[in-house]
C-alpha cells in the first residue's frame, strides 16, 4: 500500500473508470463516499486531514497546460501533464498548500481523455519538441504503484518521438519503471535536498540515499536522469549541507547519464507563510531575508540567490564536470547573467531552445 488514506471519495460518473476500479480494489478496506461533481470544497478541514482523503474525479479542463511561469522570470518551457492535484507527501514548504482551493488528494481517473488530449496536442505541434512533466501539481511517482500510470504513459509515448516526459519525484517508487525496458523519451528526475532538510521538512518523502539509490538503479536500467535542487534553502551552514549533497549525487550516479540539473531557491506566495508557521512551527527557514519579487512571490534578496547559484554551479562542475547542463528555474535575466555570464534569449538560445537541444543531442527525442 503506497500511502495511508482514511477514506476515498468517488465522484459520480467515475465509478466505472478502470483506474477507479483498480484503486477501490486496492483500498477495499477503506470507507467510500460518493460525491456530486464540484460538491466538495474546503470546510473546516485541516490540510493534514484533507491529504488523507483520496478523491477520484474526472478533470474536465485542459489536461496539458503550460507551466505557470511569469514574464519577469525565465521559464524552461515545460508543459504540465495534469494527472492530479495535491500530494500524499507532506513537504512543509509545499506551494500547493496555498495554491489550490479544492481539498483532498485528487487523482484524475479519465486517463483516456488525457491521452486523447496528448494526441491532439502532438498533432497540433508537428515536429516540435514537446517537454512534458507530471510533477508540477503532484508527485509523478507517488501513486505509480497504485495507478500504473508510468506503464500507460510508456505505451503512448512510443508513438510520439518528439515528446519527452520527465517524471519528477521525491519517492523511490520505481518498481513499475524497472519491469519494462526504458523508453528513450521518458526520463526520471529527483528533487534533491540535504538529508537534514529532507528529515525535517519533507515528511513522507524518500530519504536522500533512497532517492539516489533509486536514481542509480534507474540509470543502470537505462533511463536518463534529471535532478532538481529546488527549493534550495539558505541558512547558516547551508554550504556544507549542499556541497556534500552534490558530492554524494556524483558519487552515486554517473554524470554522463544526467540530462540536466536545475537550481531554484526557495520562494513562496505570501499566503503560504502563515500556513507554514501554523503547520510546521519548528521550521525556521521561513525567517530569512525575503523580499517581494517581481512575480509577487517572496524570494531571497538577489545577491543571496546569486551567491547560492554560483556556489552550487561550482560544486556541480567540480564533482560532475563542466559538461553538465545546469539551468535556473524561474530566475530573472540579471541573475542568469551574474551566474552564467549570459542571458537565455539575448544573443543566446532561449532556455526552452537550450533544453530542447540538450534532449535532441542526447537522442532522446526526434524533432525538426
Amino acid at each position, binding site marked *: 500500500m503506497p500511502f495511508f488514506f482514511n477514506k476515498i471519495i468517488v465522484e459520480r460518473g467515475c465509478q466505472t473508470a478502470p483506474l477507479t476500479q483498480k484503486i477501490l480494489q486496492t483500498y477495499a478496506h477503506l470507507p467510500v463516499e460518493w460525491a456530486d461533481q464540484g460538491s466538495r470544497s474546503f470546510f473546516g478541514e485541516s490540510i493534514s486531514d484533507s491529504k488523507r482523503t483520496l478523491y477520484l474525479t474526472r478533470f474536465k479542463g485542459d489536461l496539458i497546460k503550460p507551466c505557470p511561469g511569469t514574464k519577469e522570470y525565465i521559464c524552461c518551457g515545460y508543459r504540465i501533464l495534469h494527472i492530479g492535484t495535491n500530494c500524499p507527501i507532506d513537504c512543509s514548504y509545499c506551494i500547493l498548500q496555498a495554491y489550490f482551493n479544492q481539498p483532498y488528494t485528487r487523482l484524475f481517473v479519465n486517463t483516456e481523455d488525457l491521452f486523447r488530449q496528448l494526441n491532439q496536442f502532438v498533432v497540433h505541434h508537428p515536429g516540435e519538441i514537446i517537454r512534458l512533466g507530471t510533477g508540477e501539481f503532484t508527485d509523478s511517482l507517488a501513486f505509480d504503484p497504485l495507478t500504473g500510470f508510468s506503464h500507460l504513459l510508456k505505451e503512448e509515448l512510443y508513438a510520439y518521438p518528439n515528446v519527452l516526459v520527465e517524471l519528477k519525484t521525491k519517492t523511490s517508487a520505481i518498481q513499475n519503471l524497472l519491469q519494462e525496458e526504458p523508453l528513450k523519451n521518458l526520463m526520471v528526475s529527483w528533487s534533491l535536498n540535504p538529508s537534514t532538510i529532507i528529515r525535517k521538512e519533507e515528511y513522507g518523502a524518500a530519504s536522500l540515499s533512497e532517492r539516489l539509490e533509486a536514481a542509480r538503479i534507474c540509470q543502470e536500467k537505462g533511463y536518463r536522469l534529471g535532478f532538481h535542487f529546488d527549493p534550495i534553502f539558505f541558512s547558516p551552514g547551508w554550504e556544507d549541507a549542499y556541497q556534500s549533497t552534490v558530492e554524494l549525487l556524483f558519487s552515486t550516479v554517473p554524470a554522463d547519464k544526467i540530462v540536466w540539473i536545475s537550481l531554484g531557491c526557495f520562494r513562496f506566495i505570501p499566503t503560504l507563510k502563515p500556513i507554514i508557521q501554523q503547520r510546521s512551527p519548528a521550521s*525556521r527557514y521561513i525567517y530569512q*531575508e525575503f*523580499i*517581494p*519579487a*517581481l512575480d509577487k512571490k517572496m524570494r531571497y*534578496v*538577489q*545577491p543571496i540567490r546569486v551567491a547560492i547559484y554560483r556556489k552550487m554551479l561550482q560544486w556541480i562542475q567540480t564533482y560532475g564536470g563542466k559538461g553538465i547542463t545546469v539551468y535556473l528555474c524561474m530566475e530573472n535575466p540579471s541573475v542568469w547573467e551574474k551566474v552564467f555570464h549570459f542571458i537565455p534569449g539575448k544573443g543566446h538560445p532561449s532556455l526552452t531552445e537550450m533544453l530542447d537541444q540538450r534532449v535532441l543531442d542526447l537522442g532522446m527525442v526526434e524533432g525538426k
Partner: protein
Amino acid sequence: MEKIPLEWTTKAVFFSQIDWADTRFRITYGRPMAALIPSIRNVGLLNQAVLQEKESGQFRIVAGARRLRALQEIGQEPIECKIAPVESREKGLLLWNFFENLDRGFNPVEQALAVKKLSAFLEEKELIQEYLPYLGLAPKKETLERFSIVAEISPLYRQALFEGRLFPETIELTLKEFRPVANLIWALFVFLHWGFQKQKEFLTELKEISKRIGRDWVSILLSEFLTEPCQRPLWTPQQKGVAIRNFFRACLYPTLTETEKAFAQSIAPLNLDQRSKISPPPFFEGGRYNLEISFSSSQELKESLGRIVPALEQGKFDRLP
C-alpha cells in the same frame, strides 16, 4: 431583542449617598463636562440620572455619572434621580445605560468597555450580530475578540487609546504576542508618536527578528540599539523613531542594507549633477536601474549627459550591485 423591563421610583439623593467607586455599569470614557455645566445651569437637568439602591443603603450609578459630577460641581443637591430597586437585574440596568448612550456614538475605550461588560450577559451571537453594529463595529467574531482583549488594557493607557496614539489592532497584537512586555511597548509607541502603520510594522518586525536571531523580545527591546536612541536628549521623537526603524530594517534585511550601501558607494564617483538621478530596482530585484534626467533646455541636458557619458565610458556603471 427582548424588551428591558425596569421599575423605578424617584427620590432625592445627596452626593454623599452615592458610591462613586462602583463603576460596574459605566461605559463612558473621555467625555468632557465643560459644556454640561452651563447647560444645566441655564436650563436645568433635562434627563434624570439613574441609580440603583445597594444593600448597604448607598446608591450605585447606572446612567448619568457625568450629569451628577456636573451637578456636584455646581453645588446643587439633593438631586431627583430615578432609583432602581436592589433586586433589579444587572443585565437590564447595563442595557438601560447602553441604550441611553447610543445616540452619541462610542470612542474606542467605550467600545471596549461596552463589549467587555455586555459579554457578561449576552450570548456571543447576539452580541456580535446585534450589539457590535450599535457600537459602530463590524459584526464579526474577530472584532468581538479584539475589543474583548482591548478591554484588558491598563487604565494608564486608556487615554492613549482614546487620543488615537494607540490602536485596537496594535493593542490586540501586543497582548496576543508580547503580553509580558505590553506596557513597555505601548510606552514606546506613545513616546515615539508613532501612527498605526508604524506600530503594526514594529510588532510584526519584532516578532520576525526574535524568531530569526533566536533572542527573546525583552532582550531586543532592552538592547542598546533601542535604548540608546531613546535616551538622546537632543533628538526629536521622530529622529528616535527613524533610528529604531533603521535598526530593525538592518536586522531584517542585512544583505539588502549592505547592497544599498554598495549602491550608494558605486554612484558617488559618478559625480552626477542635481538634475540626474539613478534609482535601483525595488529591493534590487531584477537588475533594472532607472536613470532620470530632468532638464529645461538642451544646454542643461548636454551638461548632464556630459557627466554621465564619460562615467559610462570609464566603466563606472559596471560597478552597480
